């Protein structure tokens, strides 16, 4: 049990010593991830494994202990992130042969924190791991690159905000429920809620704020676009798929069960205000993320906003507070881990070969990088939620759950976001891979095998989960069953909701699609022969531009792809900007900080600050 945490920690130290030897470090990284996956596989089903380190200390009457437990949901998150991490680790070996920095040791430390978060039994361990993850990811993003500093600082500042609000929430929770154990504190919170409604609501909101910051939900949706654009690409694949789920996991084990069991007055017989609070923030993230993704020119920023939208879907599933929605959300977590990793791996491959991430400067790469193209195509089909790939099942479940609860505004915004997803996903496909190949990329080659094999594995995973959702749903339902939820253990290929006659068999969907392909291919073969000709033969109507004394220009329609549509939204985005709101706060701090700095640089200021501190200390003691 403990060795699962010790192995990444030791690997991090060893690879820190041998940091110059890239081959060795990345090989260690791969081996260590393989071991973690194997170990997690062997932990499946042993839900009562725990490891508690008791201390004699008490805070507010709550006993302080550090503990790990094999929580079924934690296992579910950890296992599927380990699968994807292993695939990314294979990719990293090839990707990092020529890279400048070496992110492996710090990344290993993040994986340690990752497992710690998913396996923490109490809030203190959870918080420690959370903070470790916060500052280590700062170094992983910058990775010796000064250009990345701005984005990373933004991320660090938000992490600190989230961390401090979580610390306050944990201490208040400890003071009122007299325990730091996560499960016990949830039970006590539900029992004691009516005694101190204001305090417990504050605790929940503080927790929610911390989790929302980490998962980039609506008011905090800016950091992915700033961070993903600058970080090392293979690490960003991990960050966008696994790390953005850290906020979702505590939502699933703590916030959702608590809110679901609170006896709060219902609005329109559908849900209590907290449910709507989560739901509307989720809907806003889905819609705003989608709209912003459409108007990006940098492909990594585009998919950063797409992640924001996907986190919104997950919250919408939580907001339904029904078992179908809950399962759908947790299923979507894994689907998003897989498909976002696939997309970012193919983007990393593009950047590896071209060094360019502005979409309108690329184009026509499909002729040079067909495997990367196919991975990306699979990824966007999955991300758009089109069967038979994996994004569909979970979206379907979330929509069913919301419709069943008659949460019409939420379900309409969900459909808006997932239809809008076609727009930005397709725009990326066109701009990067289709159209005409610019002259400067005519020598680009497909990526080496170490990078293409992981991408092929990702394609296989997406198809597997899409056609046989049971590979994820079975462990999920068994885990939920072990936690005491009333669920039916899922079958291999069917998904069901509690509507009448609402069971879909994804195997049949796949067969139907395969048959459609067969019929269409027959039609295609039935037609007369076709001949492949270069684009210019048709494009310039058979004329040779050189003979006319002009250059053969290449036109790609990819810059400001949705210009007319964007103009519709321009007034809105000009008026409302969360980013501007945050930067105005930042500016105010900048004005204040020299004043404060001046205070403690000079002698009298230090005395003043000291006396204020003492005063606050005394006041604090008096109040408590």
């Amino acid at each position, binding site marked *: 049990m403990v060795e699962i945490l010790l192995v990444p920690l030791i690997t991090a130290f060893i690879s820190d010593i041998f940091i110059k030897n890239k081959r060795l470090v990345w090989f260690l990284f791969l081996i260590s991830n393989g071991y973690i996956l194997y170990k997690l596989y062997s932990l499946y089903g042993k839900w009562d494994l725990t490891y508690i380190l008791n201390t004699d200390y008490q805070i507010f009457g709550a006993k302080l202990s550090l503990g790990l437990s094999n929580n079924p949901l934690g296992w579910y998150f950890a296992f599927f992130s380990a699968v994807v991490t292993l695939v990314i680790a294979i990719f990293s070996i090839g990707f990092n042969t020529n890279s400048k920095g070496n992110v492996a040791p710090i990344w290993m430390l993040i994986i340690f924190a990752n497992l710690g978060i998913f396996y923490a039994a109490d809030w203190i361990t959870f918080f420690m791991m959370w903070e470790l993850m916060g500052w280590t990811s700062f170094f992983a993003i910058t990775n010796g690159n000064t250009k990345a500093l701005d984005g990373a600082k933004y991320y660090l500042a938000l992490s600190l905000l989230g961390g401090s609000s979580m610390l306050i929430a944990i201490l208040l929770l400890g003071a009122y429920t007299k325990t730091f154990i996560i499960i016990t504190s949830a039970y006590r919170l539900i029992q004691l809620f009516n005694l101190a409604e204001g305090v417990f609501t504050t605790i929940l909101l503080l927790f929610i704020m911390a989790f929302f910051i980490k998962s980039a939900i609506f008011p905090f949706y800016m950091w992915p676009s700033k961070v993903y654009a600058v970080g090392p690409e293979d690490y960003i694949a991990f960050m966008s798929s696994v790390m953005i789920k850290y906020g979702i996991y505590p939502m699933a084990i703590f916030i959702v069960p608590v809110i679901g069991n609170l006896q709060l007055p219902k609005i329109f017989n559908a849900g209590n205000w907290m449910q709507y609070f989560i739901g509307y923030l989720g809907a806003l993230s889905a819609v705003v993320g989608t709209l912003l993704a459409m108007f990006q020119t940098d492909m990594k920023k585009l998919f950063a906003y797409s992640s924001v939208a996907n986190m919104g879907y997950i919250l919408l599933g939580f907001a339904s507070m029904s078992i179908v929605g809950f399962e759908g959300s947790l299923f979507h977590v894994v689907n998003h881990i897989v498909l976002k990793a696939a997309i970012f791996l193919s983007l990393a491959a593009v950047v590896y070969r071209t060094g360019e991430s502005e979409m309108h400067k690329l184009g026509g790469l499909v002729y040079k990088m067909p495997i990367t193209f196919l991975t990306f195509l699979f990824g966007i089909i999955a991300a758009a939620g*089109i069967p038979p790939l994996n994004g569909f099942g979970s979206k379907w479940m979330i929509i069913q759950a919301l419709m069943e609860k008659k949460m019409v505004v939420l379900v309409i915004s969900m459909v808006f976001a997932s239809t809008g997803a076609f727009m930005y996903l397709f725009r990326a496909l066109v701009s990067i891979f289709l159209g005409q190949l610019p002259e400067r990329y005519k020598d680009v080659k497909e990526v080496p095998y170490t990078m293409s094999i992981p991408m092929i594995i990702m394609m296989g995973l997406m198809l597997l989960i899409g056609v046989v959702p049971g590979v994820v749903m079975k462990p999920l339902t068994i885990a939920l069953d072990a936690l005491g939820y009333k669920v039916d253990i899922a079958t291999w290929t069917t998904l069901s909701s509690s509507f009448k006659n609402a069971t879909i068999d994804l195997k049949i969907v796949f067969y139907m699609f395969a048959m459609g392909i067969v019929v269409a291919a027959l039609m295609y073969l039935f037609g007369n022969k076709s001949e492949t000709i270069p684009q210019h033969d048709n494009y310039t109507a058979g004329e040779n531009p050189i003979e006319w004394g002009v250059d053969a220009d290449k036109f790609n329609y990819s810059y400001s792809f949705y210009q007319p549509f964007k103009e519709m939204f321009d007034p809105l985005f000009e008026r409302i900007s969360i980013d501007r709101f945050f930067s105005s706060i930042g500016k105010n701090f900048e004005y204040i900080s020299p004043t404060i700095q001046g205070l403690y640089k000079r002698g009298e200021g230090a005395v003043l600050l000291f006396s204020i501190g003492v005063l606050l200390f005394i006041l604090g003691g008096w109040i408590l």
Partner: protein
Amino acid sequence: MIAAIRVFGYSLFAIFIGLLFMGIGRKIIARIQLRLGPPFYQAFLDVGKLFARKSITHNFVMDLGMIMSLAGLLSTMLFVPVAGHMAIKTSSNLILIIYLMAIGHLGMAMAAAASGNPNATIGVSRALTMMLGYEIPFFTVMLGLIIFNGTSSLELIAQSQAGGILNWNMVKFPLGFLAAEIALQAIMGEKPFDAMVAPAEIASGPMVELGGKYLGLAFLTHAVSIFVETGIMVNLFMGGASNVFTFVLKQFEIYLITILIEAVFPRFRIEQAVKFLWTVPMSIAVVQLAIILL
């Protein structure tokens, strides 16, 4: 084996009906505009001719995209109950149908973009924008029906309207039907919502580089999409049908309305179209939804 034959039969049937509708539609438009017009079987002749011609392609993505688009729509068609019959018995889930239909659009868009012509890409960008425009009001109408019937199965919604014209959702929810009709006009890409094709501006948009059997496949895709879209409308609002003949007749009624509007209207610019779809049909649909919920 029998399932495969049934699937093949259903596919050919849908293609046949769709092409027949296209031919009749052209004839009707011609008569409205005081022209003689082509014979009603013209679409069959066109497709035959196109498949017989030699054609050009630019790369494998174009071929793949065309096959994907026809395959996507054919597999969607298999989930739409035709007078209660389906090729393979399964739950005809509305959400599944809507999402599955998208793969056809995606394939078509991919083929068009792979042809490398900027006009085609502009057409695709407009088509996707239009998609966001019509999907919202259409889904809102469907949501009302789904909540009213307590099921998201298209087959059950069709069955619930059995027993005479007064039970049809068209009569029970006239506002919803109106909104869905306006959205349908955009779904089918007919005027005033044909900015993505716009022959005068962007040379037929996505179709600009297609010729020979590629254009033929695009014709077939369009035929199947007509069948699917009118089929969904018939099941949602006109109570399905007891036999295939009545079903096709009802489909033709829906198609006729579309054609009549198409024949006399000019074209919206793309942002006007989206604004219109998000205001007029959307507010009608919201009123209908509110009536159902309250």
